């Protein structure tokens, strides 16, 4: 294809995505022909060539802003409209969308927030965005076939320890420095949110059928679920779940945890295919 079309598309791309608008983009543009933009784009008394490109520049930014507001409603709630707008303005300079779906446009927001903390008094916002992003990713991750209670009950108890299992692919274990699950829950329930406590915690995000859930998990459960990122014998999982517990309390704790995992559809039996590999 001719270089002309390629050059034209690259020029328009630069102008449409120019951080401070088309006018400023034109001011720094070295690839314009004699006659400037008007030599390439028709203008008239209603709209100049620049104003016509501006229409696309506005659409580019506001379409992405609206999409990211939908992806990060709690981040938006704690930052406020103006700060969120500024965040996305800066974010899009560093992370230009490249995927066919808008779903991928905001995937680097949590990382961006860690590297560029906003001035607003919300030091927990990167953790909050991380949780919101995990929910999006889990929402449309590959379906899993969870291990059912009936499958375990069909086995003699003495065989349980040898059962090879792992965590379902549609799950993630997040390491947070703030208890941001509470903030997200408040925003989801349209309640006033409070600044969360600063406390290292683990958050489990998973999907059963089409429903995405999340909850904080204790250290033993987090370690066991981390272990279950790979195929593991249930006996090894039991050892982790029993760590630090009095000997007489360990069996009940293990039973309770396994029952919960089974009811939540969190684990799958090994050998059901590669797509059941979990995230993180």
């Amino acid at each position, binding site marked *: 294809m001719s270089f*002309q079309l390629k050059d034209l598309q690259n020029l328009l*791309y630069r102008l449409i995505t120019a951080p401070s608008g088309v006018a400023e983009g034109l001011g720094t543009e070295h690839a314009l022909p004699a006659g400037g933009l008007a030599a390439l784009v028709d203008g008239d008394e209603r709209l100049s060539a620049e104003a016509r490109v501006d229409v696309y520049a506005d659409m580019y930014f506001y*379409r992405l802003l609206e999409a990211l507001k939908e992806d990060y409603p709690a981040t938006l709630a704690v930052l406020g409209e103006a700060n969120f707008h500024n965040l996305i303005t800066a974010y899009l300079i560093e992370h230009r969308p490249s*995927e*066919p779906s808008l*779903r991928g446009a905001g995937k680097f927001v949590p990382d961006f927030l860690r590297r560029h903390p906003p001035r607003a008094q919300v030091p927990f916002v990167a953790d909050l965005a991380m949780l919101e992003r995990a929910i999006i990713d889990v929402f449309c991750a*590959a379906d899993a076939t969870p291990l059912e209670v009936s499958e375990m009950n069909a086995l003699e108890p003495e065989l349980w320890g040898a059962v090879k299992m792992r965590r379902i692919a*549609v799950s993630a274990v997040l390491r947070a420095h703030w208890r941001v699950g509470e903030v997200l829950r408040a925003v989801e329930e349209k309640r006033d949110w409070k600044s969360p406590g600063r406390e290292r915690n683990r958050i489990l995000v998973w999907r059963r059928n*089409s429903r995405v859930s999340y909850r904080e998990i204790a250290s033993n459960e987090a370690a066991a679920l981390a272990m279950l990122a790979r195929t593991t014998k249930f006996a090894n999982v039991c050892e982790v779940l029993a760590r630090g517990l009095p000997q007489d309390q360990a069996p009940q704790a293990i039973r309770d945890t396994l029952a919960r995992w089974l009811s939540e559809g969190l684990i799958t039996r090994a050998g059901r295919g590669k797509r059941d590999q979990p995230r993180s």
Partner: protein
Amino acid sequence: MDWFEVISENFMVAGGRPLEVLAAVRDRHPLVLHGVSLSIGTTDPLNRKYLADLRALAKRFEPAWISDHLCWTGVAGRNLHDLLPLPYTAEVVRHVSQRIREVQDFLERPILLENVSSYLTFRDSTLSEWEFLCAVTEQADCGILLDINNIFVNAFNHRFSAEQYLDAIPVERVAQFHLAGHSDHGTHLFDTHDQPVGEEVWALYQRAVRRFGAVSTLIEWDDNIPEFRVLAETAERARRICEATVRAGTTGDEFSAQRPAESALPAYHRA
């Protein structure tokens, strides 16, 4: 509800609720896949991963057809997530039609391309928008999804005759219509899909039905979505116009309930 059109990219995912919902819809209704990121006019290479995902989606859900837009959406590996117009030249016709042929070969089926709304045109253009659309679809041997509102919007924005546009489009290539609302910004019309279809667009639709016959018609309403009753009334109005116009005998076609089905496809789609 006769049939559903869904944005392809929203369902090009590994699993979860989007695919679950789509499967339930497909069990009950005909479906068409409408993409927004094929970027058929870009100078980047075709995105093979995207095409493979689209082909897999089509294989699973067996849409009546696949459509996208006659535009470019990004360059140098970046996506603007917008539908940008192309210069209307013979060289660009060759560029785009060759890529459409590659896409159709890859998908193993013909596709429809939609005329986009636009807010700028290029000085280098030597063809009118409708000449460009006709030339591309002829050289690529693909179908047309004719957006009636986009013709109206562009006719205002670029000062041409919407009627002349309609009358130039080959009847046998049009397999679907879009109708939508737009907003008037004074200096230009904006294709917003957030309000009722304008009366002038309804009039143009009637003219289109007179020319093209009972073509499957979809109302696009993406924002400020009203209660379902209003949507249903809008669809019913399209159906009434279609039925009355066809019965008036101006096209000679029989009314086909506006469902995308094998019989609704142009001849070259049935091959």
